[in-house]
């Protein structure tokens, strides 16, 4: 498979990407961690008094939402431009072009893992009890990675042909923030809308993270099942969109 065959190249593209992102200032890396933290503070101050929060530790609830959302928003936003911004690697040399999207998603993923690490510290600070169910973390994350990479393949390929897609996607991301249970509990959604509301795969993943990290339970089967199916569908759809457009990349870019 291309991931193994081009392992060296993927690795070095990802590392270079991270180096460029973080070295512009010594604080670069700290800033990137400070960003979700400041966001947490603001959102906590604004929303903790807003509705009768039944959540025990709203701040942890909030941070799980923010952290998991940021992987989706950073990963897909990077993917949109991943092919066009590396146009030289498309028009002057032949490498499987998926690699460009993949290494972009992986580098967002590594940044997110650091944020998840902060999240674990927060769990300790707020005395959330650690359970064995936290061991589901890699599995939930794998599903999430599939969702983001699948969407990223489609976005990166389509952006070559539709150059306003980045702006459209920015709007989708801002709306998505409010359509996912980040700053409010799911119980706020009316029952009759719930089946539609839960179609959003990011919501499903977010809720699974809360189950395993905050509530100390195993991910509930419907969520896990739907998440897996969504990831597989997105990967297949993303790959086939990418595959059917790839042959014209070098001409259109």
């Amino acid at each position, binding site marked *: 498979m291309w991931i193994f065959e081009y392992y060296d190249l993927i690795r070095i593209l990802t590392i270079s990407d991270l180096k*460029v992102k973080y070295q512009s200032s010594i604080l670069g890396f700290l800033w990137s961690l400070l960003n979700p933290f400041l966001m947490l503070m603001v959102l906590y101050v604004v929303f903790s008094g807003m509705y009768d929060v039944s959540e025990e530790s709203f701040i942890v609830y909030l941070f799980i939402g923010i952290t998991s959302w940021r992987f989706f928003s950073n990963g897909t936003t990077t993917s949109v431009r991943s092919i066009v911004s590396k146009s030289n690697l498309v*028009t002057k*040399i032949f490498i499987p072009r998926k690699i460009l999207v993949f290494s972009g998603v992986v580098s967002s993923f590594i940044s997110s893992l650091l944020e998840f690490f902060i999240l674990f510290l927060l769990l300790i600070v707020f005395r959330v009890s650690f359970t064995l169910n936290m061991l589901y973390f890699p599995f939930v994350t794998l599903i999430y990675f599939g969702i983001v990479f699948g969407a990223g393949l489609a976005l990166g390929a389509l952006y070559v042909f539709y150059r306003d897609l980045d702006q459209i996607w920015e709007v989708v991301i801002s709306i998505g923030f409010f359509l996912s249970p980040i700053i409010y509990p799911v119980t706020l959604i009316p029952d009759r809308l719930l089946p539609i509301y839960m179609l959003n795969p990011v919501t499903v993943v977010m809720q699974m993270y809360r189950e395993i990290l905050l509530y100390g339970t195993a991910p509930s089967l419907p969520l896990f099942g739907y998440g897996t199916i969504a990831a597989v569908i997105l990967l297949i759809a993303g790959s086939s969109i990418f595959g059917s457009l790839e042959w014209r990349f070098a001409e259109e870019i």
Partner: protein
Amino acid sequence: MVFSRCGRGEEPEPGMLEGETAIEVRHLTKRFRIPLQRNFTMYDRLSSFVHRKKAFYEEFDALKDVNIRLMHGDAVGIIGPNGSGKSTLLKLIAGVLYPDKGCVMVRGQVAPFLELGVGFEPELSARENIYLYGAIMGIPRKEIDRKYWDILNFAELRRFEFLKLRNFSSGMYARLAFSIAIQSNPDIMLLDEVLAVGDEQFQKKCMSKIEEFRHAGKTIVLVSHDLSSIEKICNQGILLQNGQVEATGSPEHVIEAYHRIMERG
């Protein structure tokens, strides 16, 4: 290692790449679409759909039914006026472009030098870029470790190992790129106007490196307007005009044909 790519729904004809053939191209046609009215955003698509405008574009055949067969160890110079399809042909052989009709087949490891320093990252040091560009050119990491000092020495950039690439002059940049690229040790080299690298002294070094490859029996395909270097390096020539093969044979013969075309205007 055989690379083959054909137009949609086509299969390579039997007998392609027979014997000592390194590169074979049959009935190769490449068509570009040049939009007259750009439909480049979703907004444009939507508005032209609403206003019932069709997407107008002109079609332009960059290559028309081209047939070429190159043997292992050949050094082939491709010449022709601007817009004759030289770079398109090279990009099709490199696998960057996909044919509309016909097939391309290549046997052996290909190193495309369509541009030097593809994927260089200006914000990173020379050292980091050696590993980055090396990986892009398909050189295994251990091989780069081993050749690391050879690369810097050949580029005459030993002192600048840790300098960021954005502080490099264009000559230094090209020298570093060329030195890394030649380490990929390919069976087939595709060169597109990349020999004009650095000062005269470094150009001589590049030339002798290419001579070395040639004596080692590697296949070289060279696109250039510099006829004297084609005469010096190549044992074969191809003249392209308007996307068709106009003449083949010895470099002298092909260059003469080229001059005749240019005089006719």
